[in-house]
C-alpha cells in the first residue's frame, strides 16, 4: 500500500512533464536533446548556487525569517536566470523554432528541478507506513514549478532571442521576468515570515503560476504579431 502511495505521488510530481512532452508538438519534432541539455545546465547552475550559498550564507539556529539572509538568497537565485540565459542562447540547438525552443528548455529545466529537489524526499518518505499530506502538496508544487519554468523560459526567450519587440511591452516583459525569477524568495517569505500553512502556500503558488503563464502567453503572442 505504501509503494502505491509513492507511485501516486511520483506520477503527480513527474507525470505532467511527460504528458507535456508527449501532448505538444515537442514530441513530433524530437526535441528531447534540447531538454536533456537544459537539464544538464540546470544541474551545473544548482552546483554553482550550492557553492555560493555555502560560502556566503550563515545557517541560523531557529526557523525565523531573516531579511538579510533572504536578500542574499534572492541574489544567489539570480544565478538561475543566468543559467537559463546560457541554456537558451549559448547551447546549439537543432533547427527548431523559437516557439518550441523555449518550451523544450523550460521543460528540461523543470524536470531537473523536480528530480533534484523532490525525488529523494519522495523515495525516503512516501514509502513508509506513516501517512502525511506533504508529498501530495510537494507534487502540486512541482506542477506549479513546471508552469513557472515555462513562463520564465518564454519571457527569457522574448528578452534575449527576439530582436524586434514593441517598445511599450519591453518593461512589462522585464517586470514579469523579475517576478517569476524571485518567486522562490516570495514563497519562502510567506512560509517563514508570515507563517502560512503549507497548503496555503502551494495554493498561492498554483494560482500565481497560472496568472504568470497567462500574462507571458499574452506577451508572447503580442510580440509574435509584428514578426509574422
Amino acid at each position: 500500500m505504501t509503494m502505491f502511495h509513492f507511485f501516486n505521488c511520483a506520477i503527480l510530481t513527474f507525470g505532467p512533464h511527460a504528458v507535456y512532452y508527449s501532448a505538444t508538438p515537442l514530441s513530433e519534432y524530437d526535441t528531447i536533446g534540447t531538454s536533456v541539455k537544459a537539464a544538464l545546465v540546470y544541474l551545473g547552475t544548482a552546483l554553482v548556487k550550492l557553492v555560493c550559498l555555502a560560502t556566503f550564507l550563515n545557517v541560523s539556529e531557529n526557523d525565523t525569517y531573516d531579511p538579510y539572509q533572504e536578500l542574499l538568497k534572492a541574489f544567489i537565485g539570480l544565478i538561475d536566470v543566468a543559467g537559463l540565459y546560457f541554456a537558451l542562447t549559448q547551447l546549439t540547438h537543432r533547427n527548431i523554432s523559437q516557439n518550441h525552443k523555449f518550451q523544450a528548455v523550460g521543460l528540461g529545466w523543470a524536470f531537473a528541478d523536480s528530480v533534484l529537489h523532490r525525488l529523494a524526499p519522495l523515495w525516503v518518505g512516501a514509502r513508509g507506513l506513516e501517512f502525511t499530506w506533504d508529498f501530495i502538496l510537494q507534487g502540486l508544487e512541482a506542477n506549479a514549478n513546471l508552469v513557472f519554468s515555462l513562463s520564465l523560459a518564454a519571457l527569457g526567450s522574448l528578452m534575449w532571442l527576439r530582436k524586434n519587440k514593441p517598445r511599450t511591452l519591453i518593461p512589462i516583459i522585464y517586470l514579469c521576468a523579475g517576478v517569476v525569477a524571485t518567486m522562490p524568495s516570495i514563497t519562502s517569505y510567506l512560509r517563514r515570515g508570515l507563517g502560512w500553512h503549507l497548503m496555503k502556500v502551494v495554493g498561492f503558488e498554483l494560482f500565481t503560476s497560472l496568472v504568470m503563464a497567462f500574462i507571458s502567453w499574452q506577451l508572447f503572442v503580442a510580440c509574435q504579431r509584428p514578426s509574422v
Partner: protein
Amino acid sequence: MATTRKYGREHQVLESVIALVVILVACVELCDAATVVDVYRLIQYDIGGVPFGSRLASLNHHAGSSPFSPGADLSRTVVVVPIRELNITFIREYITQKQPLGGLLFLLPHILNSKNRDYASGGDHREKEIMRSTLLELEQLLIHSNIPYPVYFAFEDDNIDAVLADIKRTDATGQPATATTGGYKFVVLAQEPRKVSSPTITNIQGWLPGLKPDGETNHLPTIAIVATYDTFGAAPALSVGTDSNGSGIVALLEIARLFSLLYSNPKTRGRYNILFGLTSGGPYNYNGTHKWLRSFDQRLRESIDYAICLNSIGSWDNELWIHVSKPPENAYIKHLFEGFLDIAEEMGYKVGLKHKKINISNPRVAWEHEQFSRLRVTAATVSGLSVAPELLESTGGLFDRRNFVNEAAIINGIKLVAESLARHIYGYQGKKIQIFADDSNLAVNPSYVKSWLDLLSQTPRVAPFLAKDDPLIVAFKKELADHTREVNVQHEIPDGLFTFYDSTKSKLNIYQVASVTFDLLLLLVLGSYLILLFSFLVITTRGVDDLIGLFRRPASRKVKAT
C-alpha cells in the same frame, strides 16, 4: 545507420537504468513512525511443558478500543485497554473463551511509572486500593492463561493518550479500523521468542564470624538471616517487586551494616557467627534456598541456631507476622517469639505468630523458612503478609511499585529484627536496652534504606533473565563484601519445572495510515487530471482534430487499405 546505432546505445542505457530502479525498489521499507512507545511483553513460560502466558511477540495490526459493536471481528485488531477503565469480566470472557484477537495492549497509569520522580505516597487511598486489586486480579488471570496472541503493557503518556482518544473517536462512528478505512497501525518488530537457554539462579552469602574465645575448641553457633531477591510478575521487564521482596533485601543489607559495625570492634563482637544470604528462585518454591542449604557442610548446618527469613516488610501498618512451621509450643519458637513480642511492645507494635504445618509430600513451599525446617533447622519468616501466598502470588507483580511501599515500615521492621538478634547474641533478653537507638551511631540509617529501595524499585529482577554477572548481582556481592568478612557466590541451575522465553521489552511503532480506498481514489483523481492535461495541451497546441485523430488512426488505415 548512425541513428540506429544511437538508438541502440540509448536502449542499453535505458535497460541499465531500469535494472537499477528495480534493485532500489526491492530495498527494505524504511519505518518512520510518528510515535514510538516502550512496551513490555507479558511473560511467556511453561510449567512442566504446559504453556502459559502470551505465546507471540511480533505485532502488525490495526488498533481498536472498547466499546465494540457486538459480533465485531477482532482477530486482526489490537485492542487497547487503559487499566483505569478496565472491565475485567470482558477480558476474562475473551481469554477463557479463547476468542481470537490481533493483540492486547494494556495502558498502566502514569503514576506507576518508576521514571516518574514524585513518589506520591499520599493520594486517594481508596483509589490506590481499587487499582491494586484490579491489577492483582488481571495479573493472576493473565499469568495462568495460555494466550495465543501478543499481550503488551505500556505506561500512559501524552502521545499514547492522544492516539487512544483518536481511536475512540473513530470507533464511535461505528466503523472499526481495517485496511480499507484507515486509522492507526500498531507495529512491534520482534523476533520469535526463544527459550532462555541456560537460566541460572545465583545465591550470594556473606559470613560474619563471631569472637572465638581462646581455648575454645567447639565451633560457634550461627544465626542466619536470609531474603530472596528475585521476582516474578506479569511483565518481567516491569517486575521490580519493591515490597516483595525489595523490602527484605534492604532490611538484610541494613542489618548486615549494623552488625558489621558491632563486629568490627573485638570488644563488641558477639559469640555467634552471622550468615547473611541473598537467595534466588523464590517464586519457584524457594528453589534457590533449597540448593543453597544442600550445599552446606553438615557441621555448618548443625551449627545454625535459628534462621530469620525476611519477606515483604514494606507495607505493614501496626502488625507484623512471624510465620513458623514448628508448633508454637516448641521451646525455641517460644523463646524466639517472646523476644520479638517484648521489642514490639516497647516500640508500640503488635506481632502475631502463625503456624503452618509442612506437608512433606506436597512440593509447594509457601515460605522460605519451610526449606530450613525440612532440614531440621529452626526457622521463622518475618512478614507483613498474614496469609501464605499461593504459587506465583505476591512475588513482585505489576502493582508492587515504589509508591505502594512505606519506608517507615521497613525501618521499624529492621529495628525489630536487629534488636531481637542483638539481645539474643549479647544475652540481653528481657532487659529494656535499646542497642540500635535513634541518635546513636548504631541507628538505622534512613537514607541508606531509601537509596537501596529506590534502586531496587527500578531494577526488574526475574531470575532467568539475570545473567551470572548481572550488575545487580555484582552490586550485592560488593555490598556484602563491605559488611561481612567472606562472601561466596553460588550459581545453580534451577530445577527444570519452569522454562522461560525471552523478548520481554520492545518498542511499539504507531503509524497513522491511509486506507487503500484513499489511495485508489487518489490514483483515479491523478489519472483523470493527467488525461485532462493531455487533452488540454493537445487541443491548445495542435487543435481538436489532432485529438480526435489520435483515436481514429486505426480506422483511417483501414480506409487507406481499401
